[in-house]
């Protein structure tokens, strides 16, 4: 029932698409081999000057998710290995709730700030905050400091996400290919996160392995034997965590800095788009007014 009602509300809100037959669509798809189309798209994305802002935003997002992949992948291990947390699993839940609360409170203000000061400025500020958090994490011992810091991290993350979305919508060069280009932007999320997890896994194993071991799985059942709790894993040293969190901090900082040159470009593009939309609306309104005036004229005066 919820699905049905949501679908009805959504379809009422979405403007209708231009009529297009399935045959026409399929004929377009089969008229060129897939590898030709892939090469064409790759050429546009990688080589076209018009896609320069899009490329920068996508690269920025890749680096951002690289950092996010490191954080989400290793924060629990860090709590267990390096902090004074008594119950790391519960503390992890508290951290998640605090971060989500920060994000929740920041969602609407982030949109307003992005509109007021520009999406690039928001990305820069949020990137600096997140980078600072990543940089200080491996130096922490007391979990209370992390409890204090994480809401700001959540707020910065939401600010980044909101401004990033606003930024990519302004950076899209071709209105007819918006969905495809947005799809490319969205797919990068997985690649950046996967790279962050994979590379940091190899790095921390090389630089931070110690002789100590720990069992991450909580044993609530006194009767259960140790064998039921899975295998032990190596405890990682502070050097290991420094070697993954500091590159993550650098990646997020670079991700914020590389979009800075787009600031003027995106503002100009937004201003142009606003002007175009205003002109369109003015023309439409003027046309409506005149149409109404014409309708008011008596027939015998024509």
């Amino acid at each position: 029932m919820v699905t049905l009602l949501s679908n009805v509300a959504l379809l009422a809100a979405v403007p209708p698409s231009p009529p297009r037959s399935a045959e026409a669509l399929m004929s377009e798809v089969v008229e060129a081999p897939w590898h030709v189309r892939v090469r064409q798209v790759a050429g546009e994305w990688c080589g076209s000057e018009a896609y320069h802002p899009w490329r920068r935003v996508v690269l920025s997002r890749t680096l951002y998710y690289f950092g996010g992949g490191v954080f989400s992948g290793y924060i629990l291990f860090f709590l267990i290995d390096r902090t004074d947390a008594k119950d790391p699993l519960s503390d992890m839940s508290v951290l998640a709730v605090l971060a989500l609360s920060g994000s929740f409170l920041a969602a609407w203000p982030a949109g307003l700030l992005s509109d007021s000061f520009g999406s690039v400025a928001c990305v820069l500020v949020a990137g600096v905050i997140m980078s600072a958090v990543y940089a200080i994490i491996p130096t922490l011992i007391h979990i209370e400091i992390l409890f204090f810091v994480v809401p700001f991290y959540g707020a910065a993350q939401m600010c980044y996400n909101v401004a990033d979305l606003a930024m990519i919508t302004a950076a899209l060069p071709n209105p007819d290919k918006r969905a495809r280009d947005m799809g490319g932007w969205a797919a990068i999320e997985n690649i950046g996160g996967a790279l962050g997890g994979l590379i940091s896994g190899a790095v921390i194993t090389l630089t931070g392995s110690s002789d100590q071991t720990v069992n991450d799985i909580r044993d609530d059942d006194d009767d259960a034997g140790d064998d039921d709790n899975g295998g032990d894993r190596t405890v990682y040293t502070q050097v290991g965590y420094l070697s993954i969190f500091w590159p993550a901090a650098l990646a997020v900082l670079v991700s914020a800095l590389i979009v800075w040159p787009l600031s003027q470009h995106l503002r100009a593009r937004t201003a142009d788009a606003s002007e175009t939309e205003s002109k369109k609306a003015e023309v439409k309104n003027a046309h409506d007014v005149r149409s109404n005036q014409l309708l008011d004229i008596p027939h015998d005066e024509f």
Partner: protein
Amino acid sequence: MLGASVLDDESEPAPPPKDVGLCRVTAALLYNLVLSFLQNGLTAIIVPQELSNFAPDKAALFTGILIGAGALINATSPIVGYFVDRAGRRPLLMFGAALVSGGVTLFIIGATSRSLPIYFTAYLVTQIGTVIMLTVFNAMVADLSASMPNKAGRISGIYGFYGLVGSMFSYVAAGILFPVSKKNHTVHFTISLLW
């Protein structure tokens, strides 16, 4: 003559341009709440836990396969976007919604019959439907932002806010209200309730 004079009259001030309100944007993007709920709660929390109930010996392997398949499906969003550009937002949105609804129905069948192949199929169908719908949503955000360039940030904020609320609800539902366990096999009830 009078008609021509009216048409040529430039002194008549035109009313201020109509601004598309954020209400319509809010209505259009509200669905992201439901989608985030499904994406985060069902596919990220409930399904891996259910797999460990279905096949305790190979739960990690099956979870890995599903996560890998999900990542591959997510990586196809540019291709989905190509079709969204060609066919329009609405048909693909309806197609995605149909797939998601079908996938959820398969989840219920798979959970009640404890059939792993049906469960796998349900996961894949739901993932494909979700990717299609998310791609359409992203395109819609771009369309709306293009028509209201000065409100692009607020549109993104609304979109992100709904996604976040959906995720929070899903974590509460999957972790606290309807936790999955061997004795309390509630996934199908959860899904039925949510959808």
